[in-house]
């Protein structure tokens, strides 16, 4: 250390710095250069192989199934290389990730976008329009359930493929019903019966609730009320698209039903984001009924709960439920890559893979033909209540794909939370929600 090295034999400090600087400059500018260079031909090799990127946002079982489907596709289509990863996030955080990616100008070809988010994402000119790909009869577009098709269509334009579909039915805990001496619900029951049953099941001394409702004001709190509004003849937005469609008796009656649950203290209000606690209470035999989707069945089975599933109650006697479909949204990275992405998604949603995805990832078939296939019918035998969810797909409706949807959901969520927590009247809550939502819709 103390002996000075003679100049010449080792690089001088300046040489060293200069070298380091140019390296740093390269490292810093490199990504920018490559981002600028992305044009229509990127991802297409000289031999015609197209590479597409997919952010699926899945982990565990979902990721395993996707990986299998990708490997299968790869072996049949050597000309398309699918680079599938979670995208570094789970599906819950995909919207933020994709927003950042879009504003940064470097985005995947396919991403897993939640149904309510697609309208916002589709404002980007970088989202592909798939109309020309889905019109030919061989695309079998009409074979998808209506709710699944609606979920990927914004302003009449198709921007992706259905990725997953579910719907709400009511799971009930047979033990809780038996202990309370209450008869189990039937297929054709009403919301009044639901409220009365919840009240009879509730036993504060034993810490037992009739049912539960998320009270965090989030989307999981809100979407449960739409089947009630639809059943009564209301809508989320009216035909003009400038006003909500529940500013009438439909919204009021639905809120009154929730209010009754709150006033009876028969619904556990889950104020924690994610509604996990609500389901844990059900699974530990402390809750009688819960409106839920098929995704909850594995956890109920694992908890060894003796349960049954019935469709949602109704006011009018007609069957109504809501589907919360998710989408494989396609982004435009040049026509060759869009075409490859569509080809890949056709494969993912084709009959064989549809069954595979629905059975292994614990969801429902996207296609009508799949739901009638022997393989699916056999799978239905394996899980109690899955058939009820599968049948409900036929009549399930979905939220409108409008950009301002979060501006309706947020105030309505506050109104519902007030009802669940038994604060204020349904009239006041509805008025406040309608006012806020209409103001946002009118502003465009």
């Amino acid at each position, binding site marked *: *250390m*103390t002996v*000075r090295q003679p100049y010449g034999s080792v690089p001088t*400090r*300046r040489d060293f*710095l*200069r070298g*380091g*600087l140019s390296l*740093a400059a390269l490292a*810093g500018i490199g990504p920018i250069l490559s981002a600028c260079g992305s044009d229509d031909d990127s991802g297409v090799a000289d031999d015609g192989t197209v590479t597409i990127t997919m952010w699926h946002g899945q982990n565990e079982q979902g990721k395993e199934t996707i990986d299998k489907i990708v490997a299968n596709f790869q072996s049949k289509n050597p000309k398309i290389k699918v680079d599938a990863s979670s995208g570094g996030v789970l599906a819950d955080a995909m*919207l*933020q990730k994709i*927003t*950042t990616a*879009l*504003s940064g100008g470097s985005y995947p070809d396919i991403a897993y976008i939640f149904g309510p988010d697609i309208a*916002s*994402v589709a*404002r*980007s*000119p970088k989202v592909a329009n798939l109309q020309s790909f889905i019109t030919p009869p061989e695309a079998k577009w009409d074979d998808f359930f209506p709710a699944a098709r609606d979920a990927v269509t914004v302003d009449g334009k198709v921007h992706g493929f259905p990725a997953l579909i579910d719907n709400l039915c009511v799971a009930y805990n047979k033990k809780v019903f038996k202990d309370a001496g209450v008869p189990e619900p039937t297929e054709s029951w009403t919301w009044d019966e639901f409220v009365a049953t919840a009240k009879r099941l509730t036993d504060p001394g034993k*810490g037992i*609730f009739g049912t539960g409702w998320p*009270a*965090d*004001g*989030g989307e999981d709190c809100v979407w449960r009320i739409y089947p009630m509004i639809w059943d009564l003849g209301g809508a989320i937005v009216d035909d003009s698209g400038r006003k909500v469609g529940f500013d009438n008796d439909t919204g009021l009656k639905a809120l009154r039903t929730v209010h009754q649950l709150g006033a009876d203290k028969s619904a*556990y*209000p889950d*104020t*924690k*984001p994610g509604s996990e*606690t609500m389901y844990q*209470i059900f699974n530990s035999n402390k809750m009688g009924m819960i409106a839920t989707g098929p995704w909850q069945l594995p956890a109920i089975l694992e908890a060894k709960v003796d349960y049954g599933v019935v469709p949602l109650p109704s006011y009018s006697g007609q069957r109504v439920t809501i589907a919360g479909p998710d989408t494989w949204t396609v982004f435009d990275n040049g026509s060759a890559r869009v075409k490859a992405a569509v080809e890949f998604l056709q494969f993912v949603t084709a009959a064989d893979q549809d069954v595979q995805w629905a059975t292994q990832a614990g969801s429902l078939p996207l296609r009508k033909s799949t739901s009638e296939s022997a393989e699916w019918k056999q799978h239905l035998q394996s899980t109690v209540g899955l058939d009820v969810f599968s049948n409900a797909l036929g009549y399930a409706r979905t939220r409108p794909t409008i*950009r301002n949807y*979060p*501006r309706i959901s*947020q105030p309505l969520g*506050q109104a519902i*939370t*007030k009802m669940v*927590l038994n*604060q204020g009247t349904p009239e006041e809550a509805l008025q406040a929600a309608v006012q806020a939502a209409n103001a946002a819709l009118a502003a465009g």
Partner: protein
Amino acid sequence: MGIELRAAVVSREAASRRRPPARRRFGEAGTAWAYILPACVVILGLGILPMAWSLILSLQRSDLIAPAEWVGLQNYDLLSHDPAFRAAVGHTLIYTALFVPLSIVGGLGLALLLNRKIRFIGVYRTLVFVPFVISATAQGVLFSFIFDSHFGLANAVLHWFDIPPQGFFADKNQALYLLVLIGLWSGVGFCVVVYLAGLQDIQSDLVEAAALDGAGRWATFRYVVWPALRPITVFLVVWETLQALQVFDLVFVTTRGGPLESTTVVVFYVWQQAFEFFNAGYAAAAAYVLAFGLLLLSIGVRFARRRDHEVVSRP
């Protein structure tokens, strides 16, 4: 190392004698720039540029997805009339007004208790600091289970003392104060550690001299310990205030601004506007209002400190 450095300086001087002065200055400055450039790039790229970009964003109507539209100061104008934003500012101020004094008083009290030679003192000090190390997310999850209105531990304990069950996070009149409490659980640990360091810096002969002069415990604290801790206290007030005004993670995990928007703080409001409603421009404006508040606070503290120094240095 020292000799090598000196050797380098000597050789530099020797070399520079042979060069014209202008070239020398440029060469020196060039080397200096080369040394600080990496840091400059990092600060520019990760600090200054995003700040400038969000300032521009705050003057636009933008959702980060579709092309933006220039609206001038309209976002700020809307903000000034937005009752939801006003409520968020109110919640943030209540949180700060409670959190800062309580964390400092609590931190000082605990530090005084822990600043003595008793058995297992190391264990106690560690235990007090542990909550600070736990991430706010983990704390949030932990406490949202403890304070569950129906199945939580807190109500079970209250039941023991015959106190009726509380709503906690299901009660809009309690949720914000509960957040302060959770914030304190971890925030106090930091104050304790900083105060402990300060206390151990106080020379023992000062304390002994005070004792010889007949000062009691309170007088020693008032005239010896407290003046010595003053600069630390100023630092802690500033630091804790900055933390409190920017609270987000705790709110995000436990309440998401609920119940009934009783815990929406400013940063949560910014997040909600940007990523739930896609009002990125509006959110940036709200963020800038907060940043402006923080800036004013820092300037105010600087002035207060300068005056403080003048007072102290006056003979």
